[in-house]
C-alpha cells in the first residue's frame, strides 16, 4: 500500500512539475473582440509573433460579457497559465481583486495601472501619438476643420481627443476640431452605422479629415470617409490598408510589442509600472505604401520634428488623464 502511495506521489509530482514546465502564457481580449482591426488585434498580433518565433502556444479567450472578466482570470490562473496578459482598462478593478489570490502568477495589464507586487501595468502615451496625427491632419485639411470620433466616452478616449486637438492647434491655431463620442456603453465600440452617420454629420459641418478612436465603430467611420472622399486617420493598429489612398495615417499603439515582451519574459516578467511612448517606440504614426501619396515631405518633416522633441522631452503634450481637463477645445 505504501508503495502504491509512493508511486502515486511520484506520478503527482511529475504531473505537477510537467505543468510548471509547460506554463503557457494566456491572453484575454476585451469586449471589442480579437479581430477589431485595432487594439485587440494588435495584441493578438504580438502573441502570434511570439508563438511563431518560439514555437510555443498560448491560451486565449475573447470576453463576451462584463461578467466573464473575473471568471476568465481565475480560470487561467488556476489552470497554471503564467503570465496572464489582458487588454483593456476595464480589467483594472477585477485584477486588483484577483491578483493577490495568486501570488505566484504574473499578470500584465495593458492600458491600466494596478498596484500589486505580481502585476505589470503597461500604459501608453496615446496623447503623444494623437498629437502627431493631429499635426498631420491639420496640414492635410483644406477647410481648416477636422473631426474626432471617439468610441465609449471614457477618460482614456478623451486623452486621445485632447492630444489630437493639441496637435491640430500646434499647426493651425485657428482650426476647428469637431468632437463626438459614439456612446456611453460598451455597445459604442461596435456601432459602425452610428460611426458612419457621425462622420457624415462632421462632413456637413465642414470636416475634411476625421480621426476615429472607436474600435469596431471606426470601421464605419473610415468607410464613410472613403465613400465621401475625405481623409481619415486610423487608430491602434496600422489601418492604412483598409482604404488604400484614403486613410491619411494611423496612430499606432504598439500593443503587439507590449504583449510580445510580456510573453517573451514569461514567468520572469518584470512587474511594476511601464510606460510606452514615442521615446521608446511604443507609440508611432504609420507610414506605408498606402498613404505615401497623401503625406508630403514637408508634412513628414514637421511631424518627425515634433516626434524628436517629444522623445527628448523638449515638447510636453498634456495628458488628459493626469488632471481630467484639456487645455484646448
Amino acid at each position: 500500500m505504501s508503495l502504491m502511495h509512493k508511486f502515486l506521489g511520484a506520478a503527482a509530482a511529475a504531473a505537477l512539475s510537467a505543468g510548471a514546465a509547460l506554463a503557457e502564457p494566456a491572453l484575454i481580449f476585451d469586449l471589442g473582440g480579437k479581430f477589431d482591426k485595432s487594439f485587440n488585434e494588435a495584441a493578438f498580433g504580438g502573441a502570434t509573433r511570439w508563438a511563431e518565433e518560439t514555437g510555443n502556444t498560448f491560451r486565449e479567450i475573447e470576453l463576451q460579457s462584463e461578467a466573464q472578466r473575473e471568471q476568465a482570470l481565475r480560470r487561467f490562473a488556476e489552470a497554471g497559465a503564467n503570465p496572464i496578459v489582458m487588454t483593456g482598462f476595464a480589467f483594472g478593478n477585477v485584477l486588483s481583486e484577483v491578483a493577490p489570490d495568486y501570488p505566484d502568477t504574473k499578470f500584465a495589464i495593458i492600458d491600466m495601472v494596478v498596484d500589486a507586487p505580481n502585476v505589470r501595468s503597461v500604459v501608453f502615451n496615446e496623447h503623444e501619438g494623437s498629437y502627431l496625427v493631429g499635426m498631420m491632419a491639420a496640414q492635410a485639411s483644406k477647410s481648416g476643420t477636422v473631426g474626432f470620433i471617439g468610441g465609449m466616452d471614457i477618460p482614456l478616449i478623451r486623452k486621445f481627443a485632447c492630444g489630437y486637438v493639441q496637435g491640430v492647434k500646434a499647426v493651425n491655431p485657428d482650426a476647428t476640431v469637431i468632437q463626438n463620442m459614439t456612446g456611453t456603453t460598451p455597445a459604442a465600440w461596435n456601432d459602425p452605422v452610428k460611426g458612419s452617420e457621425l462622420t457624415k454629420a462632421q462632413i456637413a459641418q465642414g470636416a475634411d479629415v476625421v480621426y476615429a478612436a472607436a474600435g469596431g465603430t471606426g470601421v464605419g467611420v473610415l468607410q464613410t470617409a472613403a465613400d465621401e472622399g475625405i481623409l481619415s486617420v486610423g487608430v491602434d493598429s496600422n489601418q492604412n490598408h483598409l482604404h488604400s489612398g484614403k486613410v491619411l495615417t494611423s496612430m499606432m499603439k504598439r500593443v503587439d510589442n507590449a504583449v510580445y515582451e510580456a510573453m517573451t519574459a514569461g514567468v520572469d516578467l518584470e512587474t511594476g509600472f511601464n510606460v510606452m511612448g514615442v521615446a521608446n517606440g511604443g507609440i508611432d504614426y504609420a507610414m506605408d505604401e498606402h498613404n505615401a501619396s497623401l503625406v508630403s515631405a514637408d508634412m513628414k518633416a514637421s511631424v518627425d520634428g515634433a516626434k524628436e522633441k517629444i522623445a527628448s522631452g523638449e515638447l510636453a503634450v498634456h495628458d488628459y488623464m493626469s488632471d481630467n481637463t484639456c487645455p484646448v477645445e
Partner: protein
Amino acid sequence: MDFLTLLQVLDTSVRLATPLLLACLAGLYSERSGVVDIGLEGKMLAAAFFSAAVAFYSGNAWVGLLAGVGASVALAVIHGLASVTFRGNQLISGVAINFLAAGMTVLVAQSWFRQGGRTPPLEGDARFNPIELPFAIGPSDATAADRPLSQLIAEAGPLQQFYSELISGHSSLVYLALLTVPATWWLLFRTRFGLRLRAVGENPAAVDTAGVSVVWLRYAAVLLCGVLCGVAGAYLSSALQAGFVKDMTAGRGFIALAALIFAKWRPVYALWACLLFGLFQALELRPDIIENVIGLKVQVQLLGALPYILTVVILAGFVGKAIPPKASAEPYIKER
C-alpha cells in the same frame, strides 16, 4: 440653423429610421396575429450577416438580400415552431433567437472569412448604392463639374436642395421601406387576409369557429415578419455599411419594438414613430444644432434615451392608451 442644415438632419433621420421602420412593420405583422416577437434584433442581425456574406461571394447586393431574408425567415420559422406549434413561451423563444443570432453570426463569419466575426468590405455592386433620382443633383453631377457635391447643393435653390438632399440619393431599400407602409395598411385593413390576421390576434377562438386555421394565419404573420426583418438587416450591412461587424444592430430591434408600442400597432403611425425616433438619433449626432437652437447644452445621451422614455410614458397611459392585441403572447389551444 439654416434650411440646408435642417435638410441634412432630416436626411440622416430618414436613413436611420429605415431599419427601424422595416423592423417595426415586421413586429406589427407578428404581434397583430398574437405572436409577440422580441427576436426582431436577432433576425436583423442574422440577415445583416448573411446578406453581407452572400453579397461578398456573389458580388450582387440583391442576391445578398435574398440570402439575408432567407436567414431571417429561417429564424422566424423557429419562432413559429416554438410559439405556435409547440405553444411555448413567446418571450423566451424571442430571447433565444437573439442569443442564437448574436453567437452564430460571429462564429460563422469567423469560419468563413477568418477576419474575426466580420465580413470583408463590400465594393461596387455588392452594395446597395444611392439612387440618383431624375433632375436631382447627385455624385455624377459633382464628378462632371469636378467640385464637391456639398458645394453644388449649397448653391442650388431651396426646392432643388429639398429634392436633392432629402428625397434623392437614398438606396433603393429606403424607398422600398416607405412603400411597405401603405402596402401593409392595405393588406391589414383592406383585404380578407388582413381582417383574419387582425382577428386571430384579438380572438383566435372566433376565427377558429369560422373555420379558418389559426395556426396557418399565425405562421403567415411570423413569416412576413421574417421577410421584413431580413430586408432591415440587409439594409444595415449592405446599404448603410459596406459589410458586417459583430452586433452591428446595436439595439435597433428593441427601439423598433418601442416604436411599435408608440405607434399603437398601426402601420401609418409606425411610420411617424420611426421617423421621430430616427430624428432623435440624428439630433444625437449633432449636439451643435441643439445648442444653437435652444441655447442650452443638452446631454446627447438624453436624446438617445428619449425613445425609451416616450414609450414608458405611452405605456403608462399618460398620452392616449396603447392597447396591444388581446390574444397577444397567448398560444391558442383548440378546445376538444
